[in-house]
Every structure is written in C-alpha cells, then in structure tokens.
C-alpha cells in the first residue's frame, strides 16, 4: 500500500490503550459480540495473543491506527487453523489499511504459524466483508439472527481462506 508513513509491527500489550480509544467511537462495537461496557475482558484476551507474536499493529507516523490478531486455537486437532479479529481506528478507514492488515495477517498465519486456513466471523452489515472477499475469503455459513443490537436481529457471516 502507498499510504505515506504506514508501517506494521508486532503488537504490544501497551496497544490496548489505543484499542480502548477506538472502541469508544460510536457504533464501532456493533461489529463485535461485546458492547463498550463489556469491552474489558475481550480486549485483554485479544491483546493477550501478542505474547505469541500472533498480533499485528498498523502504524501511521509511529502512531497505532489498527490491530489485527490471529486467535490461535488451544487444542491440537484444531491448531491448523485460526480465526482473526481486526479493528481500524475510525479516523483511518477507507485508506487501504484494513486490506493491508488482512494480507499481513494471512502471511503471518501461513509463514510463521504454518496454518492451513484462516476464518473470520463478521456481523452484517460490515465493510470488512468486501475487504476479505477481495483477498480470497469465501463464505461457508450464514446464521440469521445470531446477534441482537437494541432489539434488532442481524446475521453472522463466516468466511474462510485456505492456503493449501
């Protein structure tokens, strides 16, 4: 990507404070299973994967703007694949950062962790769908009514990408 000053590094525990700020923006939590009030435990769990080098942080001019993380599976028979989560600071959307983060996560999955596939769970509607389809993800399940936001039901779309 050609966004000046953009770079990616492994995430650090300290990136949590930036993530908390991004989740405070209106409607950002709508794309995730938790509400802003419930964010503490899931975000700690999320950034916890940084200790396995399974999390990447996107930076612009040295400032974190995105975090993407492979949620590695804890059991041996399912350790050949993982899901991922991605958050991009709302102020830095629609600049190609999401696509770049997903591509780098796929590289991390394939090269460092030797995974055979990666999957993602997306609550609809969500702009992440077009991002992941662009890099080769295909849907394998859609569950209607999987999430309820202020009484309104929405679907959960599951997509996967195989490396082999």
């Amino acid at each position, binding site marked *: 990507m050609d966004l000046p000053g953009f770079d990616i590094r492994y995430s650090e525990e300290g990136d949590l404070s930036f993530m908390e700020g991004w989740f405070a923006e209106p409607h950002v939590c709508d794309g995730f*299973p*938790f*509400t802003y009030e*419930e964010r503490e*435990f899931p975000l700690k769990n999320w950034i916890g994967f940084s200790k396995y080098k399974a999390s990447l942080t996107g930076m612009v001019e040295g400032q974190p703007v995105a975090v993407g993380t492979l949620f590695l599976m*804890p*059991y*041996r*028979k*399912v350790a*050949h*694949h993982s899901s991922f989560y991605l958050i991009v600071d709302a102020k830095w959307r629609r600049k190609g950062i999401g696509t770049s983060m997903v591509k780098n996560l796929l590289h991390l999955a394939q090269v460092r962790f030797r995974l*055979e*596939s990666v*999957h993602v769970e997306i609550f609809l509607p969500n702009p992440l769908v077009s991002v992941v389809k662009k890099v080769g993800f295909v849907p*394998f*399940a*859609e*569950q*209607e*009514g*999987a*999430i*309820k*936001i202020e009484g309104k039901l929405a679907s959960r779309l*599951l997509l*996967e990408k*195989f490396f082999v």
Partner: protein
Amino acid sequence: MTITTRFSEEADEKRLVEWLLQPGIMHWFPLADLREVEDAARIWMSYIKMKGVLTALWDGTPCGTALLYLSPYKKMAHQCLFAIIVDEKFRGKKVGTQLLTDLISLAQETHHIELLHLEVYEGNPATRLYERLGFVEYGRERHFIKEGKDHYLTKVMMQKVLS
C-alpha cells in the same frame, strides 16, 4: 427404568472426563489428550454456576451431561451453542433425547434463548438425534478437525429457532 435430569454438580466433572476418555469418543470432539479433556471438562462445568449444565440420571445413576454455553455478552444472550455427551454404556436408550429435550426447555424457559445451535462433526451418529428434534444445518466448515497427518473432518453447524 426412569431417565431424569438434574442440574449438574461439581462432582460430575470427574464423570465427564471419564466419558470423554471412553474409546472412540474423542474422535467426535476437538480433543486429543488428557490435558485437553480436563481443560474442556473444567470449562464445561464452569457453567454450573449459571445453571447452564444438566446431568442425566438412569435410575439415579449419572449417564450423560449437556451444556449451554451461555454468552456473557448482551448482544449474544438470545442465542446459545450447546454440547452433549452420553456415557457409552447408556447409548441407544433415549438418554440423549431426554437430555436434549430438557436442555431445550431450560434454554427457553430459564435463559430465554431464542436460537439454539450446535457443532457436530460429519459422520457423527448423534446428527440423527439433532435432526429428529428439529435442528437444521446452516453451514459447514471443511477440514475443521485434523487427525494424524492428513485426515480431516468437516464441522457441520445446525440450529433450531425456539421462539
């Protein structure tokens, strides 16, 4: 002979570990060894405090357990994934049917679950029970389980709308 169910107790965790370790059972779960079985059993029974776990009794003897993975998140609290296991000595005696029927009632009446769903691996005979009780497939994930170098199992996802 009577089959009844009650809320599970901490002492049931040991039985669950035994049932998961019965020959051939781990093939139908994403578990590979004792450490993983004990970890999964601990998580399963951690839902006791939320009244999310039932134990089936055959004339008073524990013979199976079923679990509602109740979501800690408000937006997901109307739906729930579940899991079930029956002691191999009590298979084919309608224990699974009774357990799952009572679990559905618990989900609906106590936890106000509107959408109940499950994950089962392709070829698992329990699939017939789920179909009989009204669960329908909504997706499948290829290569979900890997056993050995290149033997894979597909995960089939099924659901039932409760209201």
